[in-house]
């Protein structure tokens, strides 16, 4: 049993109460939910944006605008509403593509990150039996290997395990170091000539680690493997540009970046998308349908079967515009300052151990920790009693908690409306839990 005992270092380098890059009070005023109270009148301290983010009024207004003004099924029908709905839907696609530096024809809307990953995983196994030769380009089968890491969210692990079971391919993975980073010493053997795809997260949802994707993408492409980057925790929190990233796929969820639930994104290089067979089939994704068989539309429509989540896509575009107005550099700097402050605050509390990188170097704002002799559920319960929402458990990354020899952790995550006061409340809440359970 290996334990990562990375105590937050003294040198996180953030002056206490240095002004934050974002105007927290002004931003909070945009989030209606932050005005409500919880547990008998307590201010809501929402430190669970990593699970799902709250929504600013601008996003809610955009959805309402769609339903009240142009609601119709995009790409179906010739009436004015259908035209306007299609226009709004496609304009949103361009806005969302622009956010990650991608042309609109490379943006596929899915339900969330999970579905985007499954789309690729099923396309790769469907490829083996596709009747169109070009759809067999990326077929995965016996003798092939898929590479993941030990820090993946279940969404970026289980679909690949299942792909391997369907196709006879082998799953391999990069392990973790004691301080919460990827073990890269065996990169060249884990990623080899047999590797067909490398699926890796950009920011760990439990450790906060930001992975050095450059080296991994380079190695994968050297051996001709595709790379899928899980951006569920990076796209909402740092500038991401697909050209700089160099990967073949990037996936993320709208609901974690101030947008509505029910919409996620698969970005793929057009040449790669164009050679993939569909995952879900049905209306809107076809070219010609006859009783004997059908042909399929070009990307992105090939991967968008059925009437899409139109209002949610419009809402996500509004979320993107909200983030762009703040500036993603500022969002990143804001969270870095908060993370440094949180690591310092937690270090001051005896019995608290951070699971993950101890400082803000190559690290995002997911701060997981344990409190000696108090189970995370009980920590979470006391925090909840103080109005503080955190996540407890294995955070859908069960292998990670197992790797570090803890049953579960408590996790705080930050976003644009988070201020120092929220982190002070967290620290006070942890001390209250220690007092309540008599461990100090």
């Amino acid at each position: 049993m290996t334990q990562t005992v990375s105590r937050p270092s003294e040198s996180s380098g953030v002056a206490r109460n240095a002004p934050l890059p974002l105007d927290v009070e002004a931003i909070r005023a945009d989030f209606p939910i932050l005005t409500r109270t919880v547990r008998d009148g307590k201010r809501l301290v929402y430190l669970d944006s990593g699970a799902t983010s709250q929504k600013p009024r601008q996003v809610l207004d955009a959805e309402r605008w769609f339903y009240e003004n142009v609601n119709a099924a995009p790409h179906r029908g010739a009436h004015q509403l259908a035209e306007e709905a299609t226009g709004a839907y496609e304009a949103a696609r361009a806005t969302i593509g622009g956010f990650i530096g991608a042309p609109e024809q490379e943006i596929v809307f899915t339900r969330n990150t999970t579905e985007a990953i499954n789309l690729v995983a099923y396309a790769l196994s469907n490829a083996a039996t596709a009747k169109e030769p070009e759809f067999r380009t990326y077929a995965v089968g016996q003798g092939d290997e898929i590479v993941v890491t030990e820090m993946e969210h279940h969404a970026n692990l289980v679909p690949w395990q299942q792909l391997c079971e369907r196709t006879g391919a082998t799953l391999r993975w990069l392990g973790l170091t004691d301080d919460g980073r990827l073990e890269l010493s065996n990169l060249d053997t884990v990623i080899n000539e047999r590797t067909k795809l490398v699926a890796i997260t950009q920011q760990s949802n439990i450790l906060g680690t930001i992975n050095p994707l450059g080296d991994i993408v380079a190695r994968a492409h050297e051996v001709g493997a595709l790379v899928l980057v899980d951006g569920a925790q990076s796209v909402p929190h740092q500038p991401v540009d697909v050209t700089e990233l160099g990967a073949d796929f990037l996936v993320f969820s709208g609901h974690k970046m101030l947008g509505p639930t029910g919409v996620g994104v698969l970005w793929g290089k057009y040449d790669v998308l164009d050679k993939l067979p569909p995952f879900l089939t049905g209306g809107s994704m076809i070219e010609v349908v006859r009783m004997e068989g059908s042909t399929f539309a070009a990307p992105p429509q090939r991967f968008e079967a059925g009437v899409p989540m139109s209002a949610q896509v419009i809402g996500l575009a509004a979320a993107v515009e909200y983030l762009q107005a703040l500036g993603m550099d500022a969002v990143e700097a804001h969270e870095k300052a908060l993370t440094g402050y949180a690591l310092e605050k937690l270090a001051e509390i005896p019995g608290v151990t951070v699971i993950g990188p101890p400082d803000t170097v190559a690290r995002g704002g997911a701060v997981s920790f344990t409190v000696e002799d108090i189970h995370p559920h009980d920590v979470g319960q006391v925090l909840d009693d103080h109005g503080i929402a955190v996540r407890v458990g294995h955070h859908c990354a069960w292998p990670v908690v197992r790797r570090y020899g803890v049953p579960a952790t408590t996790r705080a995550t930050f976003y644009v409306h988070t201020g120092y006061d929220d982190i002070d409340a967290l620290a006070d809440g942890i001390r209250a839990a220690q007092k309540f359970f008599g461990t100090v």
Partner: protein
Amino acid sequence: MQLENMYQEIILDHYKNPHGRGLREPFEAEVHHVNPTCGDEVTLRLHLEGDTIADVSYEGMGCSISQASVSAMYDLVLGKTVPQALEAGEHFMTLMQAKGDPSVAEKLEDELEDAVAFAGVSKYPARIKCALMSWMALKDASARAWGGPA
């Protein structure tokens, strides 16, 4: 503070000093239950003499609620027949569905003994599963041991 409602003294006592903890021989059934949302686990063994519960032994890791619940259950079911223990399990389930209604707890006080202290948990939907895990394990073990080598 609502917390004291849920974390009754009795619960904290069972948590800090669990009764009957540890895996023992002999046993007719062993089951392993997990709570997939949080990773809490319990391994539970059941030893019957005829249809009477002669021992319930267990190991597990989890929050105070899940650990205290298995300890209180141990006290309650030891020496009972399997049907009596399953009936106690039904009462505990009723308590967990009470949404904090004190009249339900009052009615079940005699049947549930210490386990009635978990009434406050029923106000917190996310924690009900923690309290129920060991009871589910006992039900499962009973089904397996029933009719097995006595």
